């Protein structure tokens, strides 16, 4: 996935080192504290995050901007829609 269209991230949640379901729980907490339209990035080293977070984002009706493989971790970027 390219990053040319990635909007400005307003908040980064560093959940690296946290095990499932830690990164998802931290994202849910972060979304509650954010405003509609904000873009949140979650950094995770847990392999389950790549599947679990997009599933939750879809269920909650938010906008998954992308899942990016970084050096030793994944970055999942989500826009709060509601």
């Amino acid at each position, binding site marked *: 996935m390219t990053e040319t269209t990635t909007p400005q991230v307003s908040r980064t949640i560093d959940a690296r080192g946290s095990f*499932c379901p830690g990164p*998802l*729980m931290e994202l849910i907490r972060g979304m509650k504290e954010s405003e509609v339209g904000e873009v949140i990035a979650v950094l995770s080293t847990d392999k389950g995050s790549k599947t679990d977070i997009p599933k*939750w984002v879809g269920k*909650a009706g938010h906008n998954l901007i992308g899942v990016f493989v970084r050096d030793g971790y994944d970055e999942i970027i989500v826009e709060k829609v509601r």
Partner: protein
Amino acid sequence: MQRVVVLGGGVGGTLAANLIARKLKKPIAAGDASVTVVDVTGSHAYQPGYMYIAMGQERAENLVRPEGSLLDHNVNLVVGDVTRIDTAAQAVELASGERLPYQQLVIATGSRIVPEELANFDQEAQHFYSAEAAMKLRKALDAFTGGKIVIGIAGIPYKCPPAPLEVAFLVEAELRQRGLRDKTEITFLSPINRAFTIESVSEMATPIFEEKGIRLELLAGVGEIDAERKVVITDAFEEHPYDLLICVPPHRGAQVVVDSGLAPKSGWLPTDRHTLQVKTVAKPAPGQADADVPRYANVYALGDTTDLPLSKAGSTAHFEAPIVAERVAAAVLGREPEGKDASYTGRVMCFFEVGDGKGTLLKFDYDHPPKPPKPNQLWHLGKIVFNKTYWPTVPKGRV
């Protein structure tokens, strides 16, 4: 004088203090060492029993004993509220103004429920995380004549991860026995993408939901409770109407570890997974390995209070206590920790009720996930026997 101070008189604190006192018998007798437990209530509760109060199988008065009756005669007990842990000065301060210096500190302040963090929780939700709440849930179940039951979880981590699943299975069995099952719809809301955090346990539990006709909803953490409409709204904005709501309340660690600058807002103490020493910061700096984060040489944590990726359960504290005791005693005696208790392997063992007089066993460590046997009567009986024999065995270090 080497002073060992243990904060908290739950399973972890009580057992660790007793094991330390046993290892330091000679220096204590010589007046060269002391072990002191500080507990806010002075009484010890067997919390796994609360669920059985809710199921009408246990009485609250059987689940509490004076802390002093469980401690080795070489352990001092101070009943008081710790207001600050001063690691620089190596002392703890109590609300009474008393100051206890230490050379070795063990933090076993546990977890606490914070239902007030979720609006309408207290007025709408039933739970089983205190004796009083469990009695109230029992009354609600007695009064229940059919309708929609929703069982949910308001935040992870929480005490005893299998408990809400067990309650779902036990309530289902009870309603069947009372002839109310046909009039009842039961929904279980799992906050994650499977029935249980550990995959192998989830694989065991998922078919049980199907067999019992309990609707299992995934990625459905309890986000809001609409008291007027009697509806649970999940983190993913889905709505589940209820007549009876059973919900695990939000949990946090002790406020004193946050106020003392040792833990982040959640209250879970950053802890070394093997030595159980408290880390000086919650997260490594960018580019820093976890192993390079300095540990407090003389401050340990065990039980619910840690941030380790393990069940918040008495069993975890039970298996961590010997490691803390060995390391603290070794430091006092001026030797290296030795033997099998020198390092914690993540060992946990607990029973899991599935209803209809059957249960299974979850036994695991950091490197070996549980392989729960097919539920049978033996493991259910194992849990009952364990509950009955807890007082003379676990806190005193006899098992």
